[in-house]
């Protein structure tokens, strides 16, 4: 059984990557923070008595389920919003668009102030993240679990609820898609 310290160390080790994983999926920082918090609480409450070795797989499974729940709730909410407030929704989209524009402009300014290398590096990292966001959900999950969370094929398969063969296929497709996309943008890693 995982001790409090083991669980704490595990969560500390995984929390930032989990946050980024959630951001890649839902594309909203606040929602991603809520998702990670929910996943952490569920892990501690329901699986706090499991051995430390099982925690990565369990946490990934919970995280993916929590992300799916978020999309389900969003779908229901959007249905009601589109039914009852067409005008309000249009105003909301405009606000979102403005924020996004402002955000990009700020990023550009910060990069312009840095040295050329730093700017290029930051831009490359952003492009890589953008390409990862564009991957199909299952491919992205498999790729991030295998190569970012250091989980082996069996653990990834258990967390995703699919066969080991499917994990390998998802990983291979994701890597090829990323390689093609980065090559098309002239990025050499």
């Amino acid at each position: 059984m995982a001790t409090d310290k083991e669980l704490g160390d595990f969560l500390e080790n995984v929390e930032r990557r989990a946050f980024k994983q959630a951001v890649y999926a839902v594309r909203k920082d606040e929602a991603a923070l809520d998702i990670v918090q929910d996943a952490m609480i569920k892990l501690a409450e329901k699986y706090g008595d499991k051995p430390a070795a099982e925690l990565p797989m369990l946490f990934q499974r919970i995280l993916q389920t929590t992300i799916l729940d978020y999309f389900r709730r969003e779908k229901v909410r959007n249905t009601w919003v589109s039914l009852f407030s067409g005008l309000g929704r249009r105003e909301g989209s405009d606000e979102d668009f403005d924020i996004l524009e402002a955000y990009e402009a700020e990023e550009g300014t910060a990069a312009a102030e840095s040295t050329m290398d730093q700017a290029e590096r930051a831009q490359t990292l952003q492009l890589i993240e953008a390409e990862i966001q564009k991957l199909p959900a299952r491919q992205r999950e498999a790729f991030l679990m295998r190569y970012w969370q250091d989980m082996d094929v069996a653990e990834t398969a258990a967390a995703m609820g699919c066969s080991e063969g499917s994990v390998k296929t998802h990983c291979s497709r994701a890597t090829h898609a990323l390689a093609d996309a980065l090559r098309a943008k002239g990025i050499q890693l």
Partner: protein
Amino acid sequence: MNTDDINLAYKIRHALNENLDALPASTTERLAAARAIALSRKQQPRKSRRFFDVDFHFSGASLGRLGVAIPLLALVVGLGGLYQYEEQQRIAELAELDAAVLADELPLTAYLDHGFNAYLESQQRQQ
């Protein structure tokens, strides 16, 4: 996957890790707070109780199930008891009525006589 693919995957991993260090302080603080909340709600070791050489484990879920099952059982037993009691009462009342009718001086056929019924009603009205 060939070696080139694996190399690319690990280079991407390296790039993603670099980005982790650039997370805003507000985000890392919020994550730390979320971790603290999660740890405070960690499941504690189960308490087992030895009873007739059988281990009974009490956890939140099993207590929750018992919390539903016990009132439900009590309700079923209560309804059964109430039905039995009402049934006994009804039988006793009928028996009492039968006994009263049989012990009455009037013959049973008197109750079938319409004239007798009219007489009884007029008597009641006079009272």
